[in-house]
């Protein structure tokens, strides 16, 4: 039995989600002690509970401590990963995308194709929002060999939730991949509003156009209907070679649209300047599929605590070395024994 300490590294829900995915993939049971022990409200929150329940249902797992506030979780999968039709409804507080993140790679190794309906938050500032997955993470995963599609039926913004997205996964094998900064970049800026005046999107785009003028971004305005609550986000997609780096900022009450846009622009410029292939959030997501594929490499401009925690958690489940070659805030990340280069 693998025993994990919930206070390690980032100390939040990331260690649980990564452990659940790896447990499903490897069939190894684990106990997570001191769940979210470092937080002001320790123990499982609703979104974590949903992830545990979702993982348990696809892996036929035996679970202990699957209740709110629980500070110890035991998870023992059956070893079988059942493809099929699932529906996971997550309350507004958590993002449905985090549950997606937990079950996605395991479902690639299920005994049949799956259709997963995810209900809840799809555009949530505290998690990778759906447009990020669609534009950046999933294309890369497809390039690694995954057969996955993600469709948005209805957007769900924080705090109302009520969104719906459908994930289709056909079992497939992941291949190692090295991600490099492509030559030449195409920048696309998209400002999205739901139940809010389009002027917010216009102001954000105006700011982005000015700040990113060197890169001549194309500007797009998007209005989402059918959202229960108001919502606003701006994203910048930077296409380089075969890859897309995606940067997202959320509008909030009492936060100026210009500030939301300026912050995203700052991240874009820093990443462009760094020469790294991958930005911070994609790096978090990539480690697990790369480890499972047995190899991969990329440079990241900012090495986050999430990424470090993932490295640590992966080492508990798999005998795949992950090396971090830190350079300033960023790092060169290498997964697997056989150098790709």
């Amino acid at each position, binding site marked *: 039995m693998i025993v994990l300490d919930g206070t390690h590294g980032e100390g939040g829900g990331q260690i649980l989600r990564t452990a659940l995915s790896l447990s499903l993939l490897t069939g190894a049971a684990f106990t997570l002690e001191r769940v979210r022990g470092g937080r002001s409200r320790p123990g499982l*929150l*609703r*979104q974590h509970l949903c992830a545990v329940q979702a993982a348990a249902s696809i892996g036929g797992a035996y679970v202990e401590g699957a209740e709110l506030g629980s500070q110890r979780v035991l998870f023992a999968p059956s070893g079988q990963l059942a493809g099929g039709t699932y529906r996971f*409804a997550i*309350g507004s*507080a958590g993002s449905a995308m985090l549950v997606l993140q937990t079950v996605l790679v395991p479902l690639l190794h299920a005994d049949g194709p799956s259709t997963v309906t995810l209900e809840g938050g799809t555009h949530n500032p505290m998690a990778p929002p759906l447009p990020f997955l669609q534009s950046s993470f999933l294309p890369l995963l497809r390039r690694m060999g995954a057969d996955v599609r993600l469709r948005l039926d209805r957007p769900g913004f924080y705090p*109302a939730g009520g969104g719906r997205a459908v994930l289709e996964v056909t079992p497939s094998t992941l291949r190692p991949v090295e991600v490099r900064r492509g030559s030449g970049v195409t920048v696309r800026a998209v400002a999205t509003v739901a139940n809010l005046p389009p002027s917010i999107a216009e102001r954000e785009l105006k700011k982005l156009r000015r700040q990113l003028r060197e890169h001549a971004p194309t500007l797009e305005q998007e209005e989402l209907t059918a959202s229960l*609550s108001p919502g606003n986000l701006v994203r910048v997609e930077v296409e380089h070679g075969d890859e897309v780096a995606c940067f997202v900022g959320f509008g909030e009450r009492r936060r100026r649209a210009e500030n939301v846009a300026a912050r995203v622009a700052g991240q874009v410029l820093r990443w462009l300047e760094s020469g790294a292939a991958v930005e911070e959030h994609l790096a978090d997501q990539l480690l697990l599929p790369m480890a499972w594929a047995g190899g991969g490499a990329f440079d990241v401009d900012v090495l986050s605590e999430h990424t470090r925690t993932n490295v640590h958690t992966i080492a508990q489940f798999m005998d795949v070395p992950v090396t971090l070659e830190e350079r300033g805030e960023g790092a060169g990340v290498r997964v697997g024994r056989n150098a790709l280069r």
Partner: protein
Amino acid sequence: MSDTKRLVVLGIVGATLDSGKGAKRWEKWRPTVSLGQMEDLLPHRIELLVEPKFTALGRQVVEDLGAVAPDCTVQLHGTNFADPWDFEEVWRTLYEFARSHRFDPENEEYLLHITTGTHVQQICMFLLAESRHIPARLLQTSPITRRDRRERQDRRVGRYSIIDLDLSKYDSIAQRFDAERAEGVSLLKQGIPTRNAAFNRMMDQIERVALASTAPILLTGPTGAGKTRLAKRIYSLRSQRRTVTGDYVEVNCATLRGDAAMSALFGHTRGAFTGAVSDRAGLLKAADGGLVFLDEIGELGLDEQAMLLRAIEEGVFVPLGADREVRSDFQLIAGTNKDLVVAVGRGEFRSDLLARINLWTFRLPGLSERIEDLEPNLEFELESFARHQGRRIAFNAEARTRYLDFATGAEATWAGNFRDLNASVTRMGTLAPGARITADVVDEEVTRLRSDWRDVGDETGAPTSFGACRALVAEVLGDEVAQSVDRFELVQLADVFGVCRRSRTMSEAGRRLFAESRKARSKTNDADRIRKYLLKWGVTFAEVTTK
């Protein structure tokens, strides 16, 4: 999970807090919806009481809870609180709900959400949980402050706390209710920190009665004791707690005579009598949903009394000249300085009306009966002089001592009670040179007060009318004794009690009561004579002076 109990939240759909239109409603903190948005709370079921007129709002809350908490079932219970601000009504309705509701504490754990609903509903829920009629812990929700959002990056929708009454961890709530009660009492006393224990006790009672009941209240006591002020304050208190919606109407019955009385109170139709050139709604109609203070109710004519009785009992009356009844739902506060029992005996007051308004009777003592409150009231009068005149005045130290010595001494009868005090302060304030009340100003004022009171009542403080004698004896010895004592004895008793009350010690009382015979004696022990006399009636000096 099967090994833990299902969590069930009970609450009331909040007409204000839970409301919100369009997508914007999600930007607002809505307590009941927030129950489904907490990251660390997962109700299995939420049961909500909803008033029929708020059904649409209730449905929206159910729908929104469905979005944020897809696995939670929400049930609406249409519940009619005829008046959600009426204590008895709310208590009865919630009590019946609690009794008829099937609780399953073996398998379910209950939380009672007390953040929404009227103030009265919240108190009743608290009490029902405290008395275990509802086997629940209390759940309070609150929004995240703007400051926490900004400084601590708190992105939660709201927070909650659970209070387990069994564990007596409810001090903060109990204190909240206590604090509000204290606030209410203080409002009734106009914020004056009065010291007289009996008076303060009475104010506590009035506060409770005023908030818990809409039954008539009768205020008795000498003129100037503050009946009108108190009636107004009761209205302010109820209005502040939103247990009254209509207006405050005040009328002195001594000013109403004949047709004019009828029409002033109950209204008239055009042409009902000579001079009735147009319809008039009348004061009782004007106070619909509000409060009427009828001062000197003993002066009301018998016809008006009959009409008033029906208006109190059934909420209807017939305006002069009208052929249809008019409905008005008002609370009555009556004031009198007359002994209404005596008035009934003389056939001047209807006994059935007295019985109806006599449910909550409070006798406001005169100023001299609670002389320890003179000082705080003096402060109050100085404050209110400053407020009205825009000029702050103060005593100098010597003047203050001199004034208080006189004002609390035996000489000061305060025959006109608080009205006299008010007039006295106004005079001194107006005459004060440079906003300072000097010893000279006080001396002048004392002379003036002495002459004002010279021919009024009895300088020893003994009651001067038979009614007052009986009231005083009743106050000290109880109604039963007062009614069984002969007039012959009663008058003497009242005189002794009155003098005792105005004396600081038994010896001082003795000096006054036996002033003549003392001259002939070399040795005196008048205190002992008084002690024995009082003992015969089963009371001590201390009891007479403090009761």
